């Protein structure tokens, strides 16, 4: 699979030019905070923490697929999406932490379970491939309009982070849509699994679109979750209709992630994610 040698063999070949390009990096955000040019207020920091925790926990879940996906190519696709999410998490957490004098690492590795503000959807177990696709389908259809609207935030840093993230989530949306259609329209077995995956994940849709007092406090710096629900219903509905899938009968779970009340899964995710940093504080490579 690695054809990097052939890519690098001919300096004049078209597939050899490699540039990192330019984009907002977490390091830039940390620097801006250090120079005092961009530090969020407490409410905006709490809001950024939520978004960062959603992305961080989803990244950790998706990363577990590496070496376990049905095909090598899908391994790379899920790994890419995990890294995109991790990048968003780093930016949001760096920005949030700058309000409290904490680094992204301190927030990711040295908080306890009740201090995490992620929604329950993101900590749901990977299950089989179809269950992961169902979770991705919901996550991307939520994050895409969220980041698009957040890119118009009155907080310039949140707007900049969202403007970068929305392009990446656009691809996650496409990836999950393609797979929902293929699994639903594939074999009897793949369709059964897609239906089972949606049944597992759909109860966690409700929490994503719940408004709470923090949302009112951040005002135009944030996005009102309930304002995204109609678009979510429309965008998921179109794909589900094409796939002839029905999610209307699924009950909604109670949620509580935004208050730090999590399901039994988050503790295990954190244990794995945090063990190295806690065993060797400050370790780097």
């Amino acid at each position: 699979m690695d054809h990097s040698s052939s890519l690098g063999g001919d300096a004049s070949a078209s597939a050899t030019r490699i540039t990192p390009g330019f984009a907002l990096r977490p390091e830039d955000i940390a620097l801006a905070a250090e120079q005092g040019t961009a530090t969020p207020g407490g409410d905006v920091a709490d809001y950024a923490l939520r978004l960062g925790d959603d992305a961080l926990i989803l990244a950790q879940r998706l990363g577990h697929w590496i070496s376990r996906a049905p095909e090598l190519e899908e391994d790379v696709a899920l790994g890419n999406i995990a890294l995109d999410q991790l990048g968003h998490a780093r930016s949001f957490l760096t920005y949030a932490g700058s309000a409290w004098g904490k680094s992204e690492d301190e927030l990711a590795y040295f908080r306890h379970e009740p201090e995490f503000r992620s929604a329950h959807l993101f900590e749901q177990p990977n299950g089989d491939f179809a269950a992961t696709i169902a979770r991705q389908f919901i996550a991307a259809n939520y994050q895409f309009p969220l980041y698009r609207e957040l890119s118009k935030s009155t907080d310039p840093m949140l707007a900049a982070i969202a403007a970068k993230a929305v392009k990446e989530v656009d691809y996650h949306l496409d990836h999950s849509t393609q797979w929902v259609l293929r699994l639903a329209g594939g074999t009897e077995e793949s369709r059964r699994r897609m239906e089972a995956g949606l049944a597992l994940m759909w109860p966690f849709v409700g929490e994503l679109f719940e408004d709470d007092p923090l949302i009112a406090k951040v005002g135009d710096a944030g996005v009102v979750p309930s304002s995204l629900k109609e678009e979510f219903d429309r965008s998921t509905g179109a794909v589900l209709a094409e796939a002839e899938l029905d999610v209307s009968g699924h009950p909604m779970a109670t949620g509580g992630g935004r208050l730090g009340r999590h399901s039994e899964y988050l503790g295990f995710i954190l244990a794995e994610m945090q063990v190295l940093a806690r065993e060797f504080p400050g370790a780097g490579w």
Partner: protein
Amino acid sequence: MNEARLPEGTAPAPAEGAPRWPLWEVFVRSSRGLSHVHAGSLHAPDASMALRNARDLYTRRNEGVSIWVVPSDAIAASDPDSKGSFFESPQGKDYRHATYYTKSEGVKHL
């Protein structure tokens, strides 16, 4: 068995003799005006997934603005064993190169 209870992230091993995804050849163009160059190959269930996989595998570092994927089966390749008859014939035929010819007197811009 309820797949909710499957060990996390465990893909069932493909059955013996189960059909594999077909192979695709990937061509990437780095910028306008240049041609697509063969970058490698990958497996995908169909053309549109092949394009997406190619995007993930071969344009990770800003390498491209355009991708082609072609079913590997659709490519006819020259036979490596007939290298002699195929590729050695031009050797010694200097007159096929422009440099073989001497420039006529008074011709400009050459």
